């Protein structure tokens, strides 16, 4: 049984990591301890950051918020909401995936995973919204980088490296995030009954216009039952295009979209309430709520997504019928892979496809068995692996912070 330590502040965290460094004792870092993401690791010690929590500085007019790293993300979102602000990258609420109910977790966990929601293709990823941080490296030293300003080339941009490092480089203690104004208004055009090929064409076409679509996703007909919205049919596939901005401009652009895609006449416009709900459900991955199966995220150049889907998700000849949906205007596929095939042959084929087509696949949820032995990320580039090991070493020379969480042996 792992021993859990809950330090209350940065000094205690630094002392704890320093002691572990001296004793070469590996630590599993956890905040709200809810999301078993990444490779399974076994440590005798667990560092739980939940007590190092609270909003430190929030300056709405400066468009940033500085918080202690153990702060629940929900607390941050609620504080921002009071000032009609939000986190532009639409944080992914992984609670549904893991436990069937909302749980954003902590800001440290969110930053460490660098997962971004539907607006990502327009406004950038979480890593683009992380302005700075303070953290404790693997030697127990407090390091800081970045600041509260958006433009900054003062030394290496370590924020980029810490985002998505799954706690393997340093223990975050403070985080500074860029905040953005909430869109004044939002509506969504839904087109029913399209094939994934046609949806992909629509995504490509719409991004060649100046209509500034800020959400573009596709649910096939076998993956829409969970969409319990009055204006969305749950019998045919759903292609959704979101428009945000001042009300009048949103109305104009929605009308424009309807005109451009008038050949597809089964259309519905979701008004603001349903529109917001639709994208929340999408960002929360609610279609995979409590799934017992393996869930993977595939990032591809949008032009090859159709080929991926026809190969792995909707092949009538092979009768492949994996539940999936497309996000980021076709640049992202979320897919469920049946645990019935314990060797995950199809996963291997997907990895091969991704590597050949300039993309990658990340296993976001899997059972313990898979997490012990399977690959978490798909990169097989030896040079990158060597460089990544050196980078890890530069922060955490004794490899005590979440060792092996991303790569075995690093």
């Amino acid at each position, binding site marked *: 049984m792992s021993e859990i330590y809950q330090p209350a502040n940065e000094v205690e965290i630094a002392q704890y990591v320093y002691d572990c460094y001296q004793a070469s004792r590996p630590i599993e870092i956890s905040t709200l301890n809810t999301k078993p993401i990444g490779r399974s690791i076994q440590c005798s010690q667990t560092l739980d950051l939940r007590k190092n929590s609270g909003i430190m500085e929030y300056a709405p007019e400066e468009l940033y918020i500085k918080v202690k790293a153990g702060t629940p993300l929900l607390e941050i979102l609620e504080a921002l909401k009071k000032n009609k602000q939000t986190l532009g990258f639409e944080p992914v609420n992984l609670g549904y995936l893991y436990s069937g109910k909302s749980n954003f977790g902590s800001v440290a966990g969110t930053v460490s995973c660098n997962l971004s929601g539907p607006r*990502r293709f327009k406004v950038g990823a979480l890593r683009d919204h992380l302005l700075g941080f303070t953290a404790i490296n693997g030697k127990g030293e*407090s390091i800081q980088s970045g600041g509260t300003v958006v433009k*900054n*080339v003062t030394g290496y941009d370590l924020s980029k490296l810490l985002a998505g490092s799954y706690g393997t480089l340093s223990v975050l203690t403070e985080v500074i995030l860029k905040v953005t104004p909430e869109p004044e208004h939002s509506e969504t055009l839904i087109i029913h009954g399209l094939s994934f090929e046609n949806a992909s064409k629509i995504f490509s076409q719409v*991004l060649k216009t100046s209509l500034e679509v800020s959400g573009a996703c596709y649910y096939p007909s076998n993956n829409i039952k969970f969409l319990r919205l009055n204006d969305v049919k749950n019998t045919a596939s759903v292609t959704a295009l979101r428009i945000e*901005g001042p009300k009048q401009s949103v109305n104009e652009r929605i009308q424009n979209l309807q005109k451009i895609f008038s050949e597809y006449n089964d259309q519905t416009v979701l008004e603001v309430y349903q529109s917001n709900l639709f994208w929340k459900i999408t960002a929360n991955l609610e279609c995979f709520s409590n799934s017992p199966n393996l869930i993977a995220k595939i990032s591809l150049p949008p*032009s090859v997504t159709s080929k991926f889907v026809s190969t792995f998700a909707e092949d009538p000849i092979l009768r492949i019928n994996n539940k999936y949906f497309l996000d980021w205007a076709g640049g*992202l596929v979320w897919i469920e892979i049946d645990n019935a095939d314990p060797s995950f042959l199809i996963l291997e084929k997907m990895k091969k496809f991704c590597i050949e087509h300039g993309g*990658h696949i990340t296993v976001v949820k899997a059972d313990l068995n898979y997490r012990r032995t399977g690959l978490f990320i798909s990169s097989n580039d030896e040079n990158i692996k060597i460089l990544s090991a050196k980078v890890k070493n530069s922060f955490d020379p004794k490899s005590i912070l979440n060792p092996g969480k991303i790569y075995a042996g690093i």
Partner: protein
Amino acid sequence: MSLFMPEPDQQTLAKASSIISQLRKISKNVLSEEEEKAVYETDGLSVHRQRPIAVVLPENTEEVSKVLKYCYENNIKVVPRGAGTGLSGGALPLKDCVLVGLGKFNKILETDFENRCVVTQPGVTNLAITGAVQHEGFYYAPDPSSQLACSIGGNISTNAGGVHSLKYGVTTNNVLGVEMVLIDGTIIRLGGKNLDPEGYDLLGIITGSEGLLGVITEITVRILKKPQSVRAVLIGFNTNDDAGNCVADIISSGIIPAGMEIMDKPLIIATDNFAKAGYPRDVEVLLIVELDGTETEVNTLINKVLDIANKNKASYNRASESEEERLRFWKGRKAAFTALGVISPDYICMDGSIPRKKLGDVLNKIASLSKKYGLGVANCFHAGDGNLHPLIMFDSNNPKELKKAESFGADILKYCVKVGGVLSGEHGIGIEKRDLMCEMFNNDDIQQQLNLKKAFDEKNLLNPGKVFPILHRCAEEGRVHIHKGKTRFPNLPRF
């Protein structure tokens, strides 16, 4: 002008002719004559000059790889160079280095509208990328003022911004992938045409690393569709504080303009004389706000901005009524550096970033420092993102003035850090602000960055002497804090 740089390696200097002949076996473009090398002896920070052992202009990635491998095996320093327009001396050669110029990497390799990206070689200019895609209504968003001349590779090394970065981000937010060569000759690819590379975000760390981690040989950037409608508004104020408050109020109201720039009176006059931009000459501060989107959206936002301006005692306003007029508004601002060259023999351009609410405060501080040093200053700011470019005027024929100008600049940057800002927003640290890093970071912070450098370049051969303070120099200038008898940077290697 003397500049403390890493001690040249005598052994390397002694075998210069053999190095040149070895390099000639790798590349047919090796420059070793003094007059040939003279072109490469400085960059946009022209007060410092140094000729390298040789300049190599490789033609492909393999050549870059072979040059670096040769240098790595023979412990020869390497300084990479793009177009040489950088303002912080990041491409200044060292006496005992081989300068690797990427000028022959000047082709756009692919314009991919399906995936909304461009694959290009690093020597292509920033503006040429937009040039290659504008026939389809696309553009590349980051637009540094030097975009006609600066290379996209150089943009990555300094994480270049521009007047539109407030809404569309800086280089790091617009780069999808790179091919690069590590100092030992290893060629790696990071990212590509898809989003959010897995594993450590090495692409994110390369961007803004000022040529210290590798040599970039290919770049994939994302391109955006041009907005339907774009208009700019000129707003004049009588005080710095009113202008600063107006900027803060615009942002607080939930508007993110495409660009928001401030110029002070000396620059208003200089740029208006130079570019005939039609600026009001009886205001102390001029704010240019650009709004984009659909026509209705832009018109609504312009009215909101004008309301806010009036509440902040604006004394002048004019919204562009045509595309021609909008471009004229920008012509003055974009020519700021050139226009100043007409009225002052020399100037140095600073690049601090500060919290927006401190704009008025910092402008006032700069004015008082200007009096203290007896040197003129003109200010242009990317006000929306708090990035300031005070231009300190001096005459390099008077050696005392350069020293004074540098101290003036350092004082401005220290003040930026004091009010919660940073040393550089988009020009990079280079050699110019290297010794001020002690103002922002403590020993552990700097040591962590140096350790990361080692992960990429263990022998410290790539662009040494840049970005990080040299201990000796810090101590000389009295900036090293002595705490309990220990120096603040006990572990800094002395290179």
